[in-house]
């Protein structure tokens, strides 16, 4: 398969644009995102307020721009921890097999037996609402997919001739696992992490929507959608713009994931 640079370029452009927005939010936002202007409540989009205002009179555009900071952070941290934890656990389980593998795999089965959101909600409920709780819950639940992916890869690769060759050349087990097998196994996870970022983003939004993640008045797209829902019939702009931002960012991640998959030959 040939790489399709167009997909990669589009995806990276979208992600880059969001990063830029997140970095420059304080500079480019026309208003303070939490400043309430009682005189300008529920204003439709106009030249004064490009995306309109919400029921507290806050400027939607400014809140969407500031929201990019939090939502990108959610995607990044929400993927990074599960990725690292899952990769290490999966690699060890696949490589050493036996009892270690059996115990870890049953643990994964147990975690997978619960619906994802229910498990997330229970953990956050125990820890108390907030972003930190969300990250911890994500790390506790999200690693299973990475662990399974890596384990399956390692199981295949450890029977490859070059693994056998490495053993016969006197390489230590840690060297074989981390220098020879893992770099060859990780491509699939990297691709998956991109589509996972979309998932994390949406569950972050969902958790905030339920009031367990980011707390008002902080601007986060999920919270904004939640706040706007009671006004959907009169003021569609409150929910539309943050919702659209989630969709476009998710689209960017999934484009990059697709392109990476083709570049690394994961689908072959």
């Amino acid at each position, binding site marked *: 398969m040939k790489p399709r640079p167009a997909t990669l370029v589009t995806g990276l452009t979208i992600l880059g644009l969001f990063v830029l927005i997140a970095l420059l939010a304080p500079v480019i936002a026309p208003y303070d995102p939490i400043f309430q202007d009682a005189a300008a409540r529920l204003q439709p989009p106009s030249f004064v307020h490009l995306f309109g205002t919400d029921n507290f009179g806050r400027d939607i555009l400014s809140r969407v721009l500031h929201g990019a900071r939090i939502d990108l952070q959610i995607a990044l941290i929400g993927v990074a921890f599960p990725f690292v934890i899952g990769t290490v656990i999966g690699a060890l389980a696949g490589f050493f097999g036996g009892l270690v593998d059996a115990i870890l795999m049953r643990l994964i089965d147990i975690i997978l037996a619960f619906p994802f959101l229910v498990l997330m909600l229970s953990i956050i409920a125990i820890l108390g609402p907030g972003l930190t709780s969300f990250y911890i819950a994500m790390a506790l639940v999200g690693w299973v997919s990475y662990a399974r992916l890596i384990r399956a890869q390692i199981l295949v690769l450890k029977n490859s001739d070059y693994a056998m060759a490495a053993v*016969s*050349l006197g390489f230590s087990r840690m060297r074989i696992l981390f220098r020879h097998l893992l770099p*060859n196994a990780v491509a699939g996870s990297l691709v998956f992490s991109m589509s996972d970022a979309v998932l994390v983003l949406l569950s972050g939004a969902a958790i905030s929507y339920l009031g367990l993640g980011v707390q008002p008045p902080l601007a986060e797209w999920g919270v904004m959608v939640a706040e706007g829902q009671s006004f959907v019939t009169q003021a569609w702009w409150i929910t539309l713009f943050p919702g659209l931002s989630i969709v476009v960012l998710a689209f960017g991640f999934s484009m990059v994931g697709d392109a990476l998959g083709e570049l690394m030959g994961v689908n072959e």
Partner: protein
Amino acid sequence: MTDAPLQLSIRDLTVTVEEKTGARTLLDRVSLDLAKGEVLGLVGESGSGKSLFCRALVGLLPSQSLRLAQGTVLLDGEDIAKASPEALQAIRGARIGMIFQNPTSHLDPVMRIGDQIVEGVAFHQGLNRMEAKAAALEIMRQVGFTDPPRQFGNYAHEFSGGMRQRAMIAIALACNPEILIADEPTTALDVTIQAQILDLLLDLRKTRGLSIILITHDLGVVAQTCDRIAVMRHGRLIEIGEKRTILKNPREDYTRTLIASHPSMPAETAPAAALTQEPSTIKLRPLVEIDDLHVRFPVGGGLLSRRKTFSAVGGVSLQILPGETVGIVGESGSGKSTLARAMLGLTPLSDGHVTFDGHSLSLKRAETLKALRSQAAMVFQDPYNSLNPRLTIGETLSEVLRVQKKVPDAAIPARVEALLDLVELDRSFAGRKPRSLSGGQCQRAGIARALAVEPRLIVADECIAALDVTIQAQIVALLRKLVSTMDLTLVFIAHDLAVVRALCQRVVVMHHGRIVEEGPSETVFANPREAYTAALIAAIPDFDPDRPLSGRSLPLPPLKGQPA
């Protein structure tokens, strides 16, 4: 046969591929004729375009970017090169049947063998179910199924490689074709099975008047079966002619190289004998000593059923002296690879002893493994899979040197270059990754990696089986040079007896996990004691067309893999 009417006449067949830089020619004006009932051998190394040629004939170009640029294919006088896809579909199968190298991937795994044959019979001959089944059973009998009514209901995975290839042939015959294109039909098979399949093809030619195009890289196979030989290289047909003429007086240099690389040739000059130093008379402590070795693997079994074991090696005793070159031969499944791995401590021993340089693997495991890892190395069958695809050749070699600590760190880059010189690879290869190398170059890198250990023992497991014949000859020559200059002990595992005869002083024949015969190569090949060895040797397709393939006249082991 050549005065028989022409069945297929191909003129100037040209296939091009569309690339960004323009069209590249893959097949360059290939012209040849096939007479009725003729067997034409098409030889050439991989990439020479021989498979592409046969696919192009029936309109099965493997990619959208390939195009039949020009040329005519006359089938009984009718040009099918420009026929519509529908017309070609009617021709494929019905008039031109094809069989392939790897029957496993060309058989439907979830459909009974019999039904796959019936499908062809019913579709192309328009018979009803009962008649089709009767016809299918008859075809199965013709291609050598011993109990067609029972085997009719078996699936592909229940058969051995040889039986699967018979099934493929049966499916091709089901449509009653006039021409059979066989693309490396025996390459994946053991020699004895290969002989049976080739016999079968010749039989079918006789009984059904089939014309056959046999694609192969093995000149021995061609010498045994074909009437005429066509040699292809770089997409061109460079030589075609009567079999004996080509084998005796090749016109082209390339054909001469191909013939010279055939392993049965150097054996006649017996270079291996020159190396023989009568090991038995020299009192030496064996480097490797194997005593009543058993290796068993668990198979199947579940929670309720008892675990069963499969015995891969059952009671092998063998001594290998320092400086010796020992060949281990046998069919696939005979346990030769398992023996090699057990020898290097790469697979657990179930019973018995392996001693390396005085250290016993079962008594002092850690100490022996340490000795093995620093004094023994392995060369693998698949050169691409045995090198880490992410590391360059230089990185691979220097890592071994760093881990082995036999060379000071500062001297590693120089040592890497010395290793590349040793295996006759250009020094620039240090910066390249395995994927950008050819099979032969990659295998040289694999040998360099083994040499980086500065081993006393090298175990080469089928290390040339995946390579073209000309490359095989080069690698064998390299191994021979290394053994004679470097004081190496070489255990060379192969199913190709001709190569073993040319390279090894001593040969060990394995069958079903046991050693059935061993001795100096010359003796074993000249006077095999065991019927099994004799059958193995007789099944090697000899280069001399006048010495017939005698796979059938000797007591062969029963056909394997028929479901019990």
